[in-house]
């Protein structure tokens, strides 16, 4: 293992020039095997010279809302006197930190879905979000999606989705493709 990690001063703290953000580690594993892998990975990172780790109270899973702190705490215990752990009692308000579609690994897993959406987007000169909304709109004439946004460009983009129209054949093609496709879990509302 190389041990040439550079260091920098973060205020009065001396830390590795590259730190390790640990949030993503908590959203992937359900099985303990994965937890073991992440524990191993953290040990290896110490070996490589990483000594600055970022976690937060709110990085967690449905099963364990403080999963990330628990993981990082356990994994780094043997090295505790050598590493700096940053955690946040962030006004724990960003629900996306626990949504499975944003978990690490989900992006990879959803590539076939993105490919499907992009194909229809290209054919209709539409954006991917417009394809998703237009597909919803195509399901019933009385369905009205309400995508939220903080940005003007998306406000326009989303309004434009109602002008993207799919034929019955296209909708069927999308549905068939979706039925046979592997995807990550997706947040489906609070229980």
């Amino acid at each position, binding site marked *: 293992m190389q041990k040439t990690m550079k260091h920098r001063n973060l205020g009065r703290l001396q830390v590795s020039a590259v730190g390790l953000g640990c949030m993503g580690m908590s959203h992937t594993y359900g099985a303990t095997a994965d937890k073991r892998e992440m524990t191993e990975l953290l040990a290896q990172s110490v070996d490589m010279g990483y000594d600055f780790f970022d976690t937060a109270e709110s990085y967690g899973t449905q099963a364990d809302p403080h999963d990330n702190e628990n993981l990082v705490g356990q994994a780094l215990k043997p090295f505790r006197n050598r590493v700096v752990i940053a955690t946040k009692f962030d006004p724990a308000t960003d629900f996306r930190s626990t949504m499975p579609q944003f978990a690490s690994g989900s992006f990879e897993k959803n590539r076939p879905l993105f490919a499907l959406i992009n194909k229809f987007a290209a054919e209709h000169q539409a954006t991917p979000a417009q394809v998703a909304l237009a597909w919803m709109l195509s399901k019933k*004439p*009385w369905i009205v*999606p*309400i995508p*939220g946004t*903080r940005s*003007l460009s998306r*406000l326009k983009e989303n*309004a434009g989705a109602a002008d993207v129209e799919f034929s019955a054949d296209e909708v069927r093609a999308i549905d068939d493709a979706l039925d046979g496709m592997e995807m990550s879990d997706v947040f489906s*509302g609070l229980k």
Partner: protein
Amino acid sequence: MKYRNLGNSGLRVSAVGLGCMGMSHAYGAAADKREMTELLAQAVDMGYNFFDTAEVYGTPESPHDNEELLGEALKPFRDKVLIATKFGLRFDMESGTVPYPLITDSRPAAIRNSVEGSLRRLQTDHVDLYWQHRVDANVPVEEVAGVMQDLMREGKILHEAFRKLPRRLYARLVPFAR
């Protein structure tokens, strides 16, 4: 902008509505009020006429932030827009966990209390579409529907709706259908 009839409500709404939750709730710190006020005016300008909020969209510091934002921002357009809001749910923001644990409360007195609060914050005399946010296991659905009907008779809400209602409970609402 295209328009559609929403469900069987008789409401004529823009084919795409605007969900406003993310401006105040669940996605970290609330967005800048002035910017969002401007964005909401631009939405109206573009033809959006259907805005979704809830009593509980807010932060620990400002628990009703979203209704307050909409009330102020949509005031100049109130007669042109339809506002949907929701009652019967609180978030336990003190727990330190996300998503916040939910607390349901649809007792008639709570609903009454909620509707008055929403009307005040939304700066209006009526809610166009009033949702029960979550079923309350302790209050029969008929009792909730009864209060909603009273609120409709009083003109405080124009339409009622129920979120996440288990299928078996829908049947019990049939006698209330107009």
